[in-house]
């Protein structure tokens, strides 16, 4: 207990202490709480017009944790690539963390990603890809801890001034990589994996990402994750099945922006095809898209969007016609020229098994 000056009587001491104004600034100084509290103005990495139209938000909010979730083949990677292409155009460095090895460079290039092909001069074979991005995959990243370490390493380099870019981390996908303990025991344990996600990301990486929103941070970093999902069986015959995130809910809790693609019990897509003489080109899929969580500006919407190999387009005749005209020459080459018809396959319900707990 601090000792006061003893010259004062009790009532004098009480009186002067009450009158002594509490000074919040000096309190903050004393406690080392003087770090700047101001956050940067919110900026967005814009996605396609169609995405903006359907969701009523500009794209991916910078400085946040963003989840793109849904069953397989519902447009998550399309959104991820749109974000990467848009970031690249704005000088933001895309960092691909591909732990689910379904990556396709052709698709990325088709979407507009600026990539340099490293070609063998003699054979003409493409040896590698490089350019204004960072790419890593299961060759070096094998566990949740590896992903966390990789992201933190880059943020540290950025802090040291060795990586002078805003970073857009693009992780495809949560739920596709186990934790160290699962690997060591050669047993994929969902609880362990979820625990590692919580420890590595919830308590550490995610906080580093969102801290970059503060004005005191020279760079703004964003983490976009594709999250695999599974369907939870309803508890009662009258209940509804529920879409669950693979890998636990640490990332869900920390994310401020969640987009769900497709339906709960199915991908819920319908295929749009160009057909001629029995030949067909499946050129687009119609899918439900919904903003499930939006702590940025509160807008939550749902609607339908059409995903193509070149990105999202609006689900209306005009957009489809325009896209068809743009792509006609490419399809003619496949379909053998002439007129072709656009056909839509009925809703492609792929039965998705509902589970009572997260499948291993």
């Amino acid at each position: 207990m601090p000792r006061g000056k003893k010259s004062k009587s009790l009532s004098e001491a009480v009186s002067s202490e009450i009158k002594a104004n509490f000074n919040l600034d000096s309190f903050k100084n004393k406690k080392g709480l003087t770090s700047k509290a101001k956050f940067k103005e919110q900026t967005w990495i814009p996605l396609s017009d169609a995405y903006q139209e359907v969701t009523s938000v500009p794209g991916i909010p910078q400085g946040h944790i963003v989840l793109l979730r849904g069953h397989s083949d519902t447009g998550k990677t399309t959104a991820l690539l749109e974000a990467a292409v848009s970031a690249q155009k704005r000088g933001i460095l895309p960092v691909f963390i591909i732990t689910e090895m379904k990556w396709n460079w052709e698709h990325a290039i088709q979407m507009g990603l600026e990539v340099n092909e490293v070609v063998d001069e003699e054979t003409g074979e493409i040896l590698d890809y490089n350019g204004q991005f960072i790419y890593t995959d299961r060759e070096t990243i094998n566990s949740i801890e590896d992903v966390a370490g990789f992201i933190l390493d880059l943020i540290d380099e950025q802090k040291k001034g060795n990586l002078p870019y805003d970073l857009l981390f693009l992780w495809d996908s949560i739920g596709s990589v186990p934790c160290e303990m699962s690997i060591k025991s050669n047993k994929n344990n969902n609880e362990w994996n979820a625990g590692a996600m919580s420890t590595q990301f919830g308590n550490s990486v995610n906080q580093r990402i969102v801290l970059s929103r503060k004005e005191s941070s020279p760079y703004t970093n964003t983490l976009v994750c594709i999250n695999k999902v599974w369907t939870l069986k309803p508890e009662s015959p009258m209940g509804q099945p529920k879409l669950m995130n693979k890998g636990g809910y640490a990332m869900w809790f920390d994310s401020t922006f969640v987009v769900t693609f497709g339906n709960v019990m199915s991908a819920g897509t319908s295929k749009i095809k160009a057909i001629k003489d029995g030949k067909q080109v499946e050129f687009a899929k119609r899918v439900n898209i919904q903003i499930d969580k939006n702590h940025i500006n509160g807008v939550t919407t749902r609607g339908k969007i059409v995903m193509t190999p070149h990105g999202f387009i609006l689900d209306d005749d005009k957009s489809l016609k325009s896209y068809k005209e743009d792509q006609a020459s490419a399809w003619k080459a496949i379909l053998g020229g002439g007129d072709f018809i656009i056909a839509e396959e009925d809703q492609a319900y792929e039965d998705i098994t509902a589970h009572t707990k997260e499948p291993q």
Partner: protein
Amino acid sequence: MDKKELLKLLNNLEEQGPETAQTDRVLIIDGLNLFFRNFAILNAVNPDGVHVGGLGGFFRSLGALIRQIQPTSVYVVFDGAGSSNNRKNLLPEYKSGRNLQRITNWEVFESHDDEDDAKVDQMVRVIQYLKTLPVKTVTLDKVEADDIIAHLSSVLPKQKEDKVFIVSSDKDFLQLINENVIVYRPMEKEFYDENTVRQKFNMSPQNFIIYKTLMGDNSDKVKGVKGLGEKKLQKLFPELQERDLTLDDVYNLCESKFKEHVIYARVIQNIDSLEKNYKIMDLSNPMLDENDKTYLNTVVDSDNLMYLPEQFVAFYNEDKLGGMIRNVEFWVKDIFEPLNSYNK
């Protein structure tokens, strides 16, 4: 429910009129009184050997009072610097001889001065803790806590149902009791309302000032009528039980009966000193000037008090109060968060 019953119910609802406003429950604490009781009773030292009984006990008591009374606002009132000067001008011996004796006999204090230093240190720290809580800490130079409490208890009840709880072991406050004001005497653990005063003293709270004027107050060195004790007062002044009296009423009674008992004669003989007693102890006219009242009214109207529970806990840990309050993090939020919700 048939249609008729429903219509009847709806009509009744309309007749109930507008929703009643929430009633206020104000807790006013005589700060030094609460502190001294804890300081004198609790021989608690922290691991550094520093006595902390007054400090820790004060907040334990404050928490218990808030839990029990569940107030919507809390005032902790202290004597200001030079607070007894006004009354000393009227009666030089007022509160003389206080603080000459130690109030504890623990070895932790080597001397009277040591004890005094501890009082000041702990009391100052109490104020620092209070500043982190949504309570109003009030003091005024040259004004006693009694006068501040008296004024607050008169202005704080805004509607009939509002209640003001004064916490002090000082009997002077019993004269302030009315339909809105209740006094809690911690030593007896008893709430005094008008009925309690009537049961214990056979008089209304309004007559309690007459009781004090005639009996005096030893602790404040205010002399009463010589030879007058409680039993004799009840016997010689049965009117105190029957109706509210003024000091003039008492003189008139004594004049009409001065031959019957020497006490009546002594009252007549000591008119001047009894009038001084009355002035010194009458809290219905607190010794406050207009500036003081304006300031107190500003305090009443002010809101958005500071609430820094983490800082409270930081102080607590800094002072190594240990187990004086169990689970202090939970305690501070449990006690003061509801109070803070009114502080908007």
